[in-house]
């Protein structure tokens, strides 16, 4: 039995799945983001805040409280010499949730001097 075409196809499939497989992204939770075209491509964020539908704050896979979130952002800010313009904060909010939790994040960020954020959206297919 000639195995050559089968091996060709199997290798092709392996290469396909290897290339399309999402490399583990710890900082991105599985959320249902708003389907909008956005204003620009997503840049690499210094800190990514995930706000789940239930209103939980998740940073790098860890559920945190709002004071802890503020503390983490403050640490990042200190590491950048206190220059908020160099800090890129991406807020990923589940579109099914209400805005209260995101509002709390925004208010907390503005209190520590972070006055610019990027809201993540998902490109509609």
């Amino acid at each position, binding site marked *: 039995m000639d195995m050559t075409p089968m091996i060709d196809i199997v290798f092709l499939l392996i290469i396909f799945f290897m290339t399309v*497989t*999402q490399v583990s992204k710890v900082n991105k939770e599985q959320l249902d983001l708003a389907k909008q075209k956005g204003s620009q491509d997503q840049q690499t964020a210094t800190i990514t805040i995930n706000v789940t539908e239930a209103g939980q704050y998740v940073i790098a896979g860890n559920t945190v409280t709002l004071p802890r979130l503020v503390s983490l952002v403050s640490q990042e800010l200190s590491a950048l010499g206190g220059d908020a313009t160099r800090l890129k904060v991406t807020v990923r909010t589940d579109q099914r949730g209400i805005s209260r939790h995101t509002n709390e994040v925004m208010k907390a960020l503005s209190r520590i001097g972070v006055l610019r954020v990027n809201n993540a959206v998902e490109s509609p297919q």
Partner: protein
Amino acid sequence: MRLTNRRTQHGEKIELSMTSMIDVVFLLLIFFMTTASFVKTERQLDSNIKNQDSSSASASDLEPAIVDIVESGGRFVFRVGARDVQDSGELTRILRQFPSKLDGAYVKVSDEAPFGMVAAAIQACKDADFTIVTYVPPK
């Protein structure tokens, strides 16, 4: 010296066993097929944050484009001035009529508003050529 000997010195034909390679290849294939999750393209909507309790006011705050996301008749709508709209396309058309885009647009977000509408409002402001969009959470 010949590198591509097909027969040994004793004239025996070399046979390459494919079984173990195919085992491994199938294992890899099954692994990648089961763990594959397709990447969704994410983009971003940049916005400034302004607290409603901040007292700083500038000349540009006189007549800014303000989109309020409020509940009206049991459902959330976009409110621009006295007009309530539900469709983000219509909101974009209204926002395009503002003469000065340099002053920026403000999106006032009530706590109960669904975030999907907030994103739609910011997107509408961007589509209407407002370069600066400010997210205004409640007090």
